[in-house]
């Protein structure tokens, strides 16, 4: 019984870490095809804002939301100043976001020094059998599911969501029908950045606050997006479950490092069969009855 609970707990911890790390990256990638290589630094920025605001006396949940908001605004600025100018030059825009990330992490090092006093993990712990578990990590799992549900509502039930999906499907026709696609890209980039900032804020109590905070999560974010593909609502959670299972199994058995190596090897094997990730597989499956596929 204890063993089963332990396995379930490890799985949900891996799942929520992978999902929260990746979701912001996946939202931007799904819409624009751009991989934001400053994603890790955006998470770092979220963690810093959350920590600074919370240390100043603001309640922790509010501090996390403020972190998300701040990084979302910053993302909008980056989109307008940099990414927008590089439409049609995908690889250049990816390289440019990396330069932004480098400036952010080194700039933070100059501004705040090598590390910062963190906030402690709330909610304490509980035990099942001989092992003790952290409540906060269970809460993170719940939050990741709630976040996924809200994103689903945003994309399926709001006007923004409708326009965003139209832009993803065919930007030219969406534009012809009166959708301001440039604005869609800015909003989506800001949304993805805000999600990165929120993830950074949520992880802040569980980690040390350093300028290279983000590098702890980007491998997980990358592999989840690679395996998940372009559909952030369906591909990313399935990928997070799949990789979460691999990571939890290998991690508990052989330790953190082997867990990470296992993630990468699984990913390389999966892309050999599914170059467009799980989203590509779902697309193919959905399109099967008609036999032909039109370009997106």
């Amino acid at each position, binding site marked *: 019984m204890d063993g089963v609970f332990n396995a379930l707990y490890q799985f949900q911890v891996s799942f929520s870490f992978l999902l929260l790390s990746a979701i912001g990256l996946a939202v931007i990638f799904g819409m624009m095809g751009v991989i934001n290589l400053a994603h890790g630094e955006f998470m770092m920025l979220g963690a810093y804002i959350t920590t600074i605001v919370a240390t100043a006396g603001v309640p922790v949940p509010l501090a996390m939301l403020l972190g998300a908001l701040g990084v979302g605004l910053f993302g909008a600025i980056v989109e307008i100043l940099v990414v927008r100018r590089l439409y049609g030059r995908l690889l250049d825009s990816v390289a440019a976001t990396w330069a932004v990330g480098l400036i952010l992490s080194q700039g933070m090092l100059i501004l705040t020094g090598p590390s910062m006093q963190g906030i402690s993990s709330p909610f304490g712990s509980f035990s099942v059998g001989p092992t003790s578990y952290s409540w906060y990590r269970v809460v993170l799992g719940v939050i990741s599911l709630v976040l996924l549900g809200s994103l689903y509502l945003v994309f399926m039930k709001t006007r923004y969501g409708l326009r965003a999906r139209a832009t993803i499907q065919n930007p030219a026709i969406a534009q012809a029908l009166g959708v301001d696609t440039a604005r869609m890209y800015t909003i989506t980039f800001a949304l993805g950045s805000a999600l990165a900032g929120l993830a950074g804020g949520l992880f802040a109590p569980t980690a040390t606050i350093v300028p290279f905070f983000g590098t702890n999560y980007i491998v997980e974010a990358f592999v989840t997006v690679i395996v998940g593909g372009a559909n952030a609502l369906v591909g990313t959670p399935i990928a997070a479950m799949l990789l979460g299972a691999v990571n939890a199994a290998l991690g508990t058995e052989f330790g953190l490092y082997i867990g990470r190596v296992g993630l990468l090897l699984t990913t390389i094997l999966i892309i050999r069969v599914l170059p467009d990730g799980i989203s590509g597989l779902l697309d193919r499956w959905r399109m099967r009855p008609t036999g032909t596929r039109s370009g*997106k």
Partner: protein
Amino acid sequence: MRRGGWLLSAENVAFVVFLSFLLVYPLTTDEFSVLNTAYFMAISLMALSLALIWGKAGILSFGQTAFFGIGGYLYGIYTLNVLGSGATWIGILAGVVAGAIVAATLGYFMFYGGVNDVFVGLTTLALTLVLQTFMAQTAGSEWTVGEARLNGYNGMYVPQISVGDAPLYGKPLYFLYLAFLIGVYLLLRWLSGTRWGYGLLALQENRPRTETFGYNVRLMQVQVFCLAGAVAALSGVLYASWGSYIDPSSMGITAAITPVIYVAIGGRRSLTAAMISSMILLKVSQSLASSAPQYALVIFGLLALLAVLFVPEGFMVAVFNALDRWVFRRPPANHGGETNDATPGTRQVS
């Protein structure tokens, strides 16, 4: 243009000036600066590797540092275990071949799987970061390969390059590194002028069209990825043996981004610009390092951002193009910008 590439052009003149300077430089300065410049040359091979894969073939690899690290570690492990004359050279070969094999394997999985563009960047970056985490936990004494202790973040001791039993120092080492750098440069320049090299340019512009012309696009991608991996591994071997030391940070995120930044600033389409500008930027970075290392990276980040936004062909290539137009009266050899990519949201479905 095919033969014209070797005639009088800004790029070739710059190369000749650069080479002459490096040949004369050791005669004019002290031992320390000579060794220091040898270090720059070792790292500049990374810029050549990246200019080949990114500039010539349009494949964005963010993980050339993975092959750099593999080369350095493999050379160290081999030369620590096998003594005697000639071990150095087989060690160099072992490092380079290891980098090439890993690159070919990963390349096979990626390119034959149909993975392209940003996904290649992500996968290669993930590879180098995973290798870093793996090497970082090898501090314990159980992580020993024969005589070689991997030693985690304390770094591994790596023997120097030696001829017979005597390690190479000073000018001989410098000229050996120069020979490696110029040799690789000339090999890559020659390859870019062959049918294969023009095929790479074609697949950078448009993969399906290149395929219909009868090129085996996937095979060519694996080949160029393997070659770039070998060059990066050579860079790692020369770096590790230069300092008698290698540690996991050589495969970390900062190490991975620096060559990308150098090449973006100089100009990725030109091997000459990538090589010369990385030498210059390494020198600048070292001068700043004593006072404020963080500022160097912020400045380079800003320069790269400005280059990508306003001078997409790269600063040095822009100068080459201007010289070509106004001094040498010939059409510029290197065009800027990308032509391959679709607009956001219209990814090709294959």
